[in-house]
């Protein structure tokens, strides 16, 4: 994740003297023009479609009723602010088109999309009141299983084992979490969910490392197997014994002082233990992967197992460990669906969150922090879809729900900043 080696950097940028020139390739210019046009189109949509239809004021609630420090709701005149937002987009687009932001293009494009999304929110809430804070809080909550799922994938893939089975690990964790949670309490449930993910990951590791089965097939199998097994057991066992499907829910734990800060408090410091677990895991895995000996070994096995092997690293062992850790994170994430929210299991309740986690991993460039921000975007679109279903808006929720998948396709197609997977990802290693 450091700067690329000197020979990978664009040759055009450097003269012999080392002085950087502004010369751009024709391809870069074309790309800058296209992104500029995209921003113009967004500006045009806001100007000609959203602004004329917005009347009155849009009111965004910034505090819950029970908070100690109350912020007044943010009220903006809908149409006026849409004009301003359209102008901002138009300015960004024009600058990009004629001058180009060059290395900052991706960031600027991200800002442009954020401005556009905010425009949609202003337009949708015109003449209404909308609790922005509850949407932000649910963004964090909904991003949690996605970020953890992505983290599960990162741990596996950094060691060179593709994990398509995240969805199955989430579902398995959700199931055993609720059963053990009902029997022995939430903490045991959380532990059981984590172990379930580990067991499923062990299956992945055995088949991928020892039997060198195609890893994508194993992932698909894990998903089908867990979906079938949990649905079967739900119908055969849980329906007859409702006591087994009624686990205690982890309540939100407010951290003193920090939890009282407006906006940030409810978002980050008044959440359940699983959400805090997510923050801790993201931070610790980042540290482990990039700052410890274990992390260096894991990454080297994922990049070049042959070289790692010749230096005496046991490739199979490293991969086993990373995959099982990854699976455990996936199982822990599964507990969010049952112990973190409703306390009961329903068939297929993860609803593709594991695949969104996979997408977050890719969008985040196989980096825990990047994956967390990608998960936030996906969580935001998830939560926006929910809230927009309540206040009636003309945008169909289905299109908002499609957004994460579209973004992923755009990213893997390399249209916006290309992410590079570990070099040996998905390739079995055979010791010679």
């Amino acid at each position, binding site marked *: 994740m450091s700067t690329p080696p000197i020979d990978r950097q664009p040759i055009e940028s450097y003269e012999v003297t080392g002085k950087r020139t502004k010369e751009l390739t024709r391809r870069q210019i074309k790309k800058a023009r296209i992104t500029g046009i995209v921003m113009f189109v967004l500006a045009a949509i806001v100007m000609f479609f959203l602004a004329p239809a917005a009347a009155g004021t849009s009111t965004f609630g910034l505090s819950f009723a029970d908070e100690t420090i109350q912020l007044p709701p943010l009220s903006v005149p809908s149409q006026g602010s849409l004009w301003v937002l359209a102008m901002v987009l138009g300015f960004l687009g024009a600058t990009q088109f004629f001058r180009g932001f060059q290395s900052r293009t991706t960031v600027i494009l991200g800002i442009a999309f954020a401005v556009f999304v905010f425009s949609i929110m202003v337009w949708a809430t015109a003449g209404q009141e909308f609790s922005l804070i509850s949407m932000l809080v649910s963004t964090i909550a909904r991003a949690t299983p996605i970020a953890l799922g992505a983290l599960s994938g990162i741990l596996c893939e950094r060691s060179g084992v593709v994990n398509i089975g995240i969805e199955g690990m989430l579902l398995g964790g959700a199931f055993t979490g609720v059963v053990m949670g009902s029997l022995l309490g939430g903490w045991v449930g959380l532990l059981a969910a984590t172990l379930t993910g580990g067991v499923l990951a062990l299956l992945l590791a055995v088949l991928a490392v020892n039997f060198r089965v195609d890893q994508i097939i194993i992932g*698909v199998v894990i998903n089908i197997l867990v979906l079938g097994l949990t649905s079967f057991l739900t119908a055969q066992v849980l329906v007859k014994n409702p006591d087994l499907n009624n686990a205690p829910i982890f309540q939100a734990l407010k951290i003193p002082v920090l939890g009282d800060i407006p906006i940030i408090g409810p978002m980050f410091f008044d959440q359940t233990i699983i959400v805090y677990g997510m923050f801790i895991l993201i931070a610790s895995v980042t540290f482990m992967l990039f700052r410890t000996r274990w992390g260096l070994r894991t990454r080297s096995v994922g990049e070049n197992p042959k070289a790692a092997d010749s230096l005496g690293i046991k490739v199979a062992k490293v991969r086993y460990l990373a995959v099982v850790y990854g699976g455990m994170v996936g199982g822990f994430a599964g507990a969010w669906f049952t112990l973190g929210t409703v306390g009961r299991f329903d068939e297929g309740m993860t609803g593709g969150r594991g695949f969104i986690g996979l997408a977050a991993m890719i969008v985040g460039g196989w980096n825990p922090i990047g994956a967390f921000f990608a998960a936030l975007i996906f969580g935001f679109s998830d939560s926006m879809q929910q809230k927009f279903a309540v206040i009636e808006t003309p945008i169909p929720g289905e299109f908002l729900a499609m957004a994460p998948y579209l973004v992923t*396709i755009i990213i893997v197609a390399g249209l916006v900043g290309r992410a590079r997977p570990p070099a040996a990802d998905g390739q079995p290693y055979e010791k010679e």
Partner: protein
Amino acid sequence: MTTTQMPSTDNPEPKNSRSFMQQLTTGTDWKSAALIPALAVLTALIIGVVIIMLTGSSFGDAMSAYWALLQGSVGSLKAISETLTAATPLILAGLSVAIAFRAGLFNIGTEGQLLMGGMFAVWAGFTFIGLPFYVHIPLALVAGVVGGAIWGFIPGFLKAKTGAHEVITTIMLNYIALRLVDFLLKTEIFQREGRNDPVSKTVEASAQLPLLLGWINPGLRVHLGLIVALAAAAFIHWLLFRTTTGFEFRAVGANPKAAKYAGMSITKTYVLVMVIGGALAGLAGAGQVLGVLDRATPGFSSGIGFDAIAVALLGRSNPWGVVAAAVLFGGLSAGGQQMQVSANVGIDLISVIQALIIIFVAAPALISAIYRLKAPAASTQISKGWGS
């Protein structure tokens, strides 16, 4: 989760010169073509018994469940008709996955392609009124083919032009298709008049696929789609093994670099294979809406696209192998209904058994170890990581 533990083995995998990929591309000997799949099915069924017994049923209960499974799949003319009805979309969708395997691509997007094909077909089915059936049926089927082909073209094109891995793009396109169907079914064009729930208009009688055995008993649901599916299998077999295009598919699948060196266009092959695969899946969707459902509802694909992966693996990506595997899975699915009704064992057990079958087929070393076979145990490697 205690039930999913794999029979572990310390047997080191025998070295083998023929990889699974080579078997997929060049054909197989009888042992890996028939014996391993048969043992895989048997082993999966045995583990199924264990799972049933773990839920508190006796061995006798498990046996009566399997008896119901057998009865429901081949026990009567009605059962056989149900088996073939369930096998029909599996044949087409299985071919869709298989042809992609042959070219070294992993088409997980069959589910989405099937949905889009079904939506196109159902639209053609209810929009054109007053056409004779010999015009309307082909028209609706072609619409399905086009819908699926479009949804297959996108990942093929992205793979060829940008290198975007088809596994990711197809998974994402599956979800997009699912949401798109939800949306479309609520639009004026599709939604049935006077309904608030997402249900499409009914397909005109002139576009409904005729029942093959309707003259014996109108309750026998097996329809013209079966013939279409078998014809498609014959066509794909011809395409793969008797034409230059098919040879190019297999060459690119076996070794893209060598194929490129020999002057073949990898780009063209990837796009073409995904378009054909999408078209086959679209045909499967069309067959479902025109032959069985007569309308579209949210998620009418009901996981056929995922079962198709298992079918293609079990059939070793051979078109006739796919047909055999699809009939087996059709039987499991039809018999599973019977098992649920008369033996009170949930139909979801069938997906567990199917998943186990894939594991054993994909890891023949497991089967060889359990049954102490000397059969060559090749590892399965179809995909080549995200980057390639």
